[in-house]
């Protein structure tokens, strides 16, 4: 079987360039494993070797410099039965190194063949990540002061499961390539070769210099690792159900209660500290609104860290669709911690006697013209804690204002799936009613 179309040859490479030898070897290795051209995908990117795709009669994919690894992974993830191999240069391994190490780490079953000639050929002989120290290129005219990557070591360190290094002159290159193609997992073959256009003339480098360079650099040759491990794309599919399932249907809420809000908006700011379930309580409050056929919006604000700092939610309720979700002056402010007070000071200063503030008794330094109600978290008979205090504050607000029947809120709390959280919240709800009617 011919994978390289003989009618398209000769290859376009410079005289003496070894790219063609490697490509022929790939052809033979594919033949050796009996690859079906329709199930074979060549992925290449920028660099001289990127000119190769048009000579192959397999599926070909030519992409951006150094990103061939990502396209190959995308193809393999989409269709794991395909034989996907990447032709890349040492330049591509430099710019796309991040993708190389991650494809190796994940063990995505693509085969990467690096045409490693220690410099950028296509752009005219600049240094790459594999240019030897002291090597001359057009961007290291006095000799390279950087130290090169050992690409095989890089892939080994990334837990790549098949790693080999060969030279383009090795008689058994085809054998190694065939082993790589047969490996069920990620494979990397670093093929050392010569660039007759730039690296050789600039460094008086001969074919025989390659062996010396390998020795001087301490590069190991041959198959360096061949390990069996579950291939990623097949592994990913093990979690799939037998039959395709659609997304869950929207969880619609019927209006079972009647709201006291007839027109306009009712806005509430809920302020506390991280860890006080402010956002959850606010969502429950909004859902209670939906239980009354109200529309709601919720905006949250908290630092990127968890369990520290403030947590703020803003709820708007209205009998008609709400678009703008911002709140300039809320009808009520519920503050349950000193952090909460800190972030709602500006809101507080705008309140008048027409608005309500509900606060916990421990909060100090709250001055306002609004009507203030207090909850004593220390009153053991109430069973309140940091985790349910905001629920109590909401329930109290509902009892005071009649914006909606408290039962609308209770119905949401009763539907909380986790028992402990549900009970905690219902306890807070009941506590709020006790605060208003201490006798009961």
């Amino acid at each position, binding site marked *: 079987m011919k994978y390289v179309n003989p009618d398209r040859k000769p290859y376009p490479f410079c005289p003496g360039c070894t790219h063609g030898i490697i490509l022929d070897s790939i052809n033979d290795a594919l033949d050796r494993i009996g690859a079906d051209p329709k199930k074979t995908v060549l992925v290449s990117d920028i660099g001289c070797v990127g000119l190769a795709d*048009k000579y192959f009669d397999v599926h070909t994919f030519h992409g951006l410099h150094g*990103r061939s690894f990502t396209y190959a992974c995308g193809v393999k993830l989409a269709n794991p039965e395909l034989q996907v191999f990447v032709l890349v240069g040492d330049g591509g391994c430099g710019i796309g190194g991040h993708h190389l190490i991650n494809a190796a780490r994940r063990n995505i079953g693509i085969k990467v063949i690096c045409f490693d000639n220690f410099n950028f050929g296509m752009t005219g002989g600049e240094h790459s990540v594999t240019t030897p120290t002291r090597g001359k290129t057009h961007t290291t005219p006095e000799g390279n002061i950087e130290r090169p990557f050992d690409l095989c070591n890089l892939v080994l360190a990334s837990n790549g499961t098949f790693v080999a290094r060969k030279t383009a002159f090795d008689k058994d290159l085809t054998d190694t390539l065939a082993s790589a193609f047969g490996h069920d997992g990620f494979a990397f073959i670093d093929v050392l070769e010569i660039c007759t256009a730039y690296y050789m003339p600039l460094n008086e480098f001969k074919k025989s210099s390659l062996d010396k360079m390998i020795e001087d650099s301490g590069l190991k040759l041959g198959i360096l690792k061949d390990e069996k491990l579950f291939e990623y794309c097949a592994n990913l599919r093990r979690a799939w*159900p037998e039959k395709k399932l659609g997304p869950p249907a929207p969880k619609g809420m019927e209006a079972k209660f009647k709201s006291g809000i007839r027109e306009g908006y009712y806005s509430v700011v809920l302020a506390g500290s991280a860890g006080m379930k402010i956002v959850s309580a606010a969502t429950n409050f909004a859902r209670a609104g939906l239980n009354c056929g109200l529309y709601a*919006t919720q905006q949250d604000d908290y630092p990127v860290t968890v369990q520290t700092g403030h947590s703020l939610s803003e709820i708007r309720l209205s009998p008609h669709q*709400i678009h703008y979700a911002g709140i300039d002056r809320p009808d009520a402010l519920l503050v349950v911690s000193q952090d909460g007070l800190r972030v709602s000071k500006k809101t507080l200063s705008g309140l008048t006697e027409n608005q309500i503030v509900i606060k916990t008794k421990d909060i100090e330094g709250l001055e306002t013209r609004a009507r203030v109600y207090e909850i004593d978290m220390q009153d053991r008979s109430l069973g309140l804690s940091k985790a349910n205090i905001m629920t109590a504050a909401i329930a109290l607000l509902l009892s005071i204002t009649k914006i909606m029947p408290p039962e609308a809120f209770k119905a949401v709390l009763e539907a909380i799936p986790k028992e402990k959280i549900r009970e905690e919240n219902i306890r807070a709800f009941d506590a709020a009613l006790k605060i208003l009617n201490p006798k009961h």
Partner: protein
Amino acid sequence: MLEFVTGAEVIARAAIDAGCNFFAGYPITPATGILLNMVRLIPKARGVFIQGEDEIASIGFCIGASSCGMKPMTATSGPGISLYSENIGFAQMAELPLVIVNVQRMGPATGGATTNAEGDIQFIRWVTSGGYPMIVLSPTTVEECYELTIDAFNLAERFRTPVVLSTCKDLVMNRSTADISRYKRPSIVERKFTTDAANFLPYNYTKLDDVPPFAPIGGDILTRVNTSTHNKEGRLSKDPEIAGPALTHLSEKITKHIDEIERVEADVQDGAETIIVAYGSMGRTSRDVVEMARRKGAKVSLAIVKSVWPVPEKGLKKCIGNHKKIIVPELNLGQYVLEIQRLFPDKTTVPINRVDGKLITPEEIIENFIHTSPNPSPSTFLRAGLQRRGRSSS
């Protein structure tokens, strides 16, 4: 029936309903919600989810999957769009469908992760070299998140091109009420696969505005995907007689079919002299503005631009008609207003801008056409926008 949802949940559900079977993304606020919803939904639909090592890998995976005939989606914010940029050009060049959700946040650079802004609106249009047309849709409600996500997939498949759903933190991260009866489900458009194996060419067009029939990588017909300028066979070619038509084709296949893309919602009031033109979160706020203004007895019209790019010129011209004043509120320093001024040079345009992370309030828009006080006093941020243009009518 009502539900209380984030835009992220709705976008993810819509993607699955649209047939999305591949998602790759990298965590970034405020787009992470989409990633988190997709990781739960897509494996159940027997689709692939992968968190890339970065944004470049994420879009690269999507492009590879699209070449196999999958329907991929990715989601990010401004910093991620910067990293997608080169690959967006690749998806255009290789004619590979792909849906990109851009959940905008305050820029430039890292900006404000959890802060509202819509400053990418020109960036997303001119995101890649060459300036070839981008299709960009922008929802204003959670219900529209559903419909326009499906539309984005449909347009991507129809035109074999990347399509962007442009949103922002306000709609995607925050919860709001959706009226379930208002979720519109467009019928699904599938990619046109070739039926003529014998004469198949990967990039075959007869007329420049044709969309070439597709054959997947790994299918029975050998195909070629190419990021470089190529001939119809997908082989590298820089011959001017090949490159010129090939690149013109990339533009014309979209611009000649703009009628299929245009989405403008018009709410024109008889006798109104002022019209608000808005998109995204400002489209959302403007719906409240119109209601509030009309309740006060003022006359005002509204044009909501849901297909931001290519500019829906026909739809806009129809709504703007004889209105004298066009108000363009934007959460940036005035970007889309440039298109409005280009289209309507003889009208008075009033840009209203805000870049402090806060939404423009309905009142800030209203005071530009209902003068409640003798000297309307816009905030510092608003004034910046007005002075810069020097086109304010008041």
